[in-house]
Structure formats: structure tokens, C-alpha cells
């Protein structure tokens, strides 16, 4: 599969501090690429560099196979839509008037406005002044503006910020469907669960370094399952299996076996039953993405 965005050793320094450090990003065409990382990891700076808003200190960016430079930046960005950080808007104008300005600047026919407003379900609010919109509505308007002209590439920086749960779900569905319309999406978030629900590919950035990049399926393979036990006497069962040489681990008020075969699970259940300990529940649990992040970075992060 072709990469629609490729960066090579992309670096940005502020006051001799590298906020983005030799980043090699590969965004496959037709994917929803989740760009994941804690707050301050360098996600927004990276997106701004991809849009030519911030000049990289080092490295190279290729979008649609062309090397991005100040000279060809706007030509390349014609096929790109973006929503960076907070949505941009003219508060004294209505939503529709805001989009008319974008149409004019993008050289897109105004009939496209109704299409994008329908996509973000904003038809009813289009004549209201944007200063009276809620943050969620402004966010939707920003996405609508990014979708004007059916760009081949969409860069969305934390697009669900400020949305209510129903709105978040709608935007997720919208983003998931975009590749069907030939749009590749690069979406950043600090929420693992969010990326998990809409991305096909993932890049994880921490302190400016890309610490993981592959498909979501591969990321999930990092999540080895564990078998959680709930018995009539968890402490006694834990001691019994531990003495029997099984790799049991205690967690809060129960215990689990880490990544074991079916035979070992059967053996563990049998030993408990033979010892007169009732087995209420044996549950297979996948590692959460938070756990995966922890194993990749070696530290807990607030996600």
C-alpha cells in the first residue's frame, strides 16, 4: 500500500529542546491513522509541520509523494483538509457564511456546503451566528470546513474535544466511513480507547519519539491475554496454585494466570476443585491499550 504521508527524521526544536525527534511517519493511503500520545508529546507540532504551518528544524516531509516545501505547500494542501487544535471560525458570521469563505479560498463550489453540513448534521444550525454555537457545534463546523472540496487527506487534531457522548460517537462513525469516500484520515488523540474505535493504523508518540507504528491489529497482538479467577477463597486458591509452581499473580482481591495454554487453565481449575475451593468464574481478559502503552514506554501516562 502506498503511503500518503511519509516523514524522514522529522525534527522540531524549540529553545534547543526537541519537541519532535527524528520522526519517521508512514501513513498508508486509505487508512484511518491514529496518532496517539499523551498531552505535550508533540502531536500538534507534527501536524502543524505536515501542514507547513511550522517550519521543521530538520528532516523531510512527503505528502502525496511530493516533498513538502514552502513553494509547493499550498498546491499540495489543496487536496487536504485540516482541523488543528481548537476550531477556527468567524463568530460574527453564521456557520454557512463561514463555509462560504472557505469555499471561496479553496475554490470549491458553494453547493458543497450542504453536503458537508449534512455529513456533520449541522443543517439546522447553519444560519445561526457561530459565536452562539456550543464548543461541540464549533468543532463540527471545523470538520465540515475541512471536508469541503472532498480532500484526499484529512488531518484532524483531537476532533472529538468538547463533544458530548452522542457527538463523539457520530464523529467517530464519520471518520471511520471517510476511507470509503477515498479520504485518508490522520487523527490525533490522547485517548487510546478513541483511537482503538476508529483507526486502522496507529502511531504512538511520546516526548517527540515515535515509539510504535503499525496496524491496529499488530498493536493488539501486543496485548497478551490473561486468565482471571474468581473463587470461593481467592487467597487459598492463590497459595495452592503458587505452591504447584504456576505463574499466578495477585491483583486487588483476586488472582490471574498470565498468557497460559488451555491445558494449564484446566489443570488450575482441577486443582482448586480437588482442594474443595469453589470456582465461580474463569475469565479471559485482553490487556488494555493503557497497559500496552505502559509496556511500550515503560511508564504510566495519564491518557
Amino acid at each position, binding site marked *: 500500500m502506498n503511503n500518503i504521508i511519509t516523514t524522514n527524521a522529522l525534527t522540531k526544536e524549540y529553545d534547543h529542546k526537541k519537541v519532535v525527534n527524528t520522526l519517521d511517519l508512514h501513513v498508508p493511503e486509505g487508512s484511518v491513522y491514529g496518532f496517539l500520545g499523551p498531552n505535550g508529546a508533540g502531536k500538534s507540532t507534527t501536524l502543524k509541520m505536515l501542514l507547513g504551518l511550522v517550519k521543521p528544524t530538520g528532516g523531510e516531509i512527503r505528502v502525496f509523494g511530493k516533498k513538502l516545501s514552502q513553494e509547493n505547500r*499550498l498546491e499540495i494542501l489543496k487536496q487536504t483538509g485540516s482541523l488543528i487544535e481548537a476550531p477556527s471560525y*468567524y*463568530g460574527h458570521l453564521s456557520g454557512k457564511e463561514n463555509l462560504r469563505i472557505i469555499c471561496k*479560498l479553496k*475554490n470549491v463550489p458553494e453547493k458543497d456546503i450542504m453536503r458537508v453540513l449534512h455529513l456533520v448534521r449541522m443543517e439546522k444550525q447553519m444560519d445561526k451566528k457561530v459565536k452562539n454555537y456550543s464548543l461541540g457545534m464549533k468543532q463540527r463546523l471545523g470538520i465540515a470546513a475541512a471536508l469541503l472540496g472532498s480532500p484526499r487527506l484529512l488531518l484532524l487534531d483531537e476532533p472529538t474535544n468538547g463533544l458530548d457522548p452522542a457527538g463523539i460517537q457520530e464523529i467517530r462513525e464519520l471518520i471511520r466511513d471517510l476511507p470509503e469516500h477515498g479520504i485518508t484520515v490522520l487523527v490525533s488523540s490522547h485517548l487510546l480507547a478513541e483511537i482503538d474505535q476508529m483507526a486502522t493504523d496507529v502511531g504512538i508518540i511520546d516526548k517527540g519519539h515515535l515509539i510504535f507504528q503499525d496496524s491496529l491489529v499488530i498493536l493488539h497482538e501486543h496485548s497478551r491475554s490473561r486468565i482471571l479467577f474468581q473463587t470461593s477463597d481467592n487467597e487459598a486458591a492463590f497459595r495452592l496454585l503458587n505452591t504447584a509452581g504456576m505463574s499466578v499473580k495477585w491483583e486487588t482481591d483476586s488472582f490471574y494466570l498470565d498468557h497460559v495454554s488451555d491445558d494449564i487453565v484446566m489443570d488450575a481449575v482441577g486443582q482448586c476443585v480437588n482442594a474443595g475451593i469453589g470456582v465461580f468464574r474463569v475469565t479471559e481478559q485482553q490487556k488494555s491499550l493503557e497497559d500496552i502503552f505502559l509496556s511500550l514506554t515503560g511508564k504510566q501516562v495519564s491518557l
Partner: protein
Amino acid sequence: MKMLTALKAEQMKHRRRMLLLLPAALILFEFLWALWSLEPRKASDLAQGYLSSFYLFPILNSLIYPIFLAVLVNRVCDMEIKGDTFKLLYTLQDKKQFYNCKYLMALKYVALSALGSWPIIWVTGRIYGFTDMLEPHMVLQLCLSTFIVSTLLLSIQQVLSLLSSNQILPLVAGLAGSFLSLFSMFFPPAAARLILWGYYGIFGFVWMDWDRSTRISTYYEQNFDWIGLLLFAVVSLIVYFVCRSIALRKEV
């Protein structure tokens, strides 16, 4: 993108901003001031009514144009600050083009305001029945000097407005410019030339002699400083490019 398209988009942004009210308010203020200040008290006043108008307007402009320009540029630029639109606009249009559009949009209203002096003086003369001639070359000198001095101050106000997240700073700069310009009239000529806001007065071409004994003011025309104005226009052009370069260096 063509400049004309960018200008149309800029014009669309100004809907409901009622920017025309600003030059209208300035012209109305100047008109009322002219009516009050140029009212003839004796026959000799009528004989030099238009001449005295050309003495009054550069001084009046020194006082009100710095504030007018600060408010005008604020109205033109603050929508981008409030709406955080730079990061969107800079992906759609060239940064220089964006800056040029803003400048040209403000310049349009400055041109209107500068030209507005002409009908004010004419109407005032008709109302009071001035008997001297309204000389076209004087109208040209007044309008042109007002416009060219404003082009430079506009650059300063625009860079301040685009760089400040708090729009109070550019407004305070305009207000300070107005005071400085007023006080610069009492400075030695060389020092007065350091105050950019004071050039409305410096390019004045009608002077006054006031005879204390007869209490009669006599106005007379001086040679207009065309070379000075040309030099000022060149400096204004340089300042424009410098200010644009400073404004566009800011990362969004």
C-alpha cells in the same frame, strides 16, 4: 489563488462588521469640528475661509487619525485573533497574500476618509459663504498627504494587531500616537520629525500669523513639501515590507 479571489473572501469576512461606520463617524466628527471652528466672525474670515480650512485639517488629522487607524485595523484584524483562524487560513492562502488583503481592506477605508475632507471643506464653505477660491491643488495636497501618512501608520497598527493576542495594546498605541502627535507640534522641528504620527501636521501647507494688537489671523500658503512626501511614501513602503515580514514570522 488570485488576489481578487482573496480580496472577495476578505470582503465576505467583513459582513455585519459595519466598517463603513468608522470613516462615516470620522467624517461627521471632522464636519462638526469644521462647522464649529471655521465659523466666520468677521468679513476677513470669509475672505480666507478655505485657506483657514487647510490650516485646520492637518492639525485635526494629527489628533484623530492615529485613533481612527487603531480602531479601524483592530476591527479588520481582531476577527482572526478571536476566531483563531490563522492556522486554517495559512493552509488555504499564501501568508503574504493574507497580510496584503488585510492591508488593502483597511486602506480602502483610509482612502475614503482622506477623500472625505474635500466635501467637508466644500460644504462648510457653502454654508458659511466663504469668498475665497477652493483651490484644487490644495485639496489634492491635503488628501494625498493624509493618505500617505496613514499608509505608514496603518502598517504599524496592522503588525501590532496581528501580533497581539490582546487587542488593547494596538489601541493604546493609537491613543499614544494621537497624544504624541499633538505634543510634537510644540517640539523643535527636528524632534517633531521623529514622531511619525505628527506628519499629518508636518505636511501642512497653510500657515498662520496672528496679530496680537489687531487680533486678526492671516493665513498664507507655503510651498508644499513634495520631496518630503515622496520620501515619506518610500519609507512607508519599506516599513510595510518590514512589518509584513515581522508579522509573518510568527508561527501559529
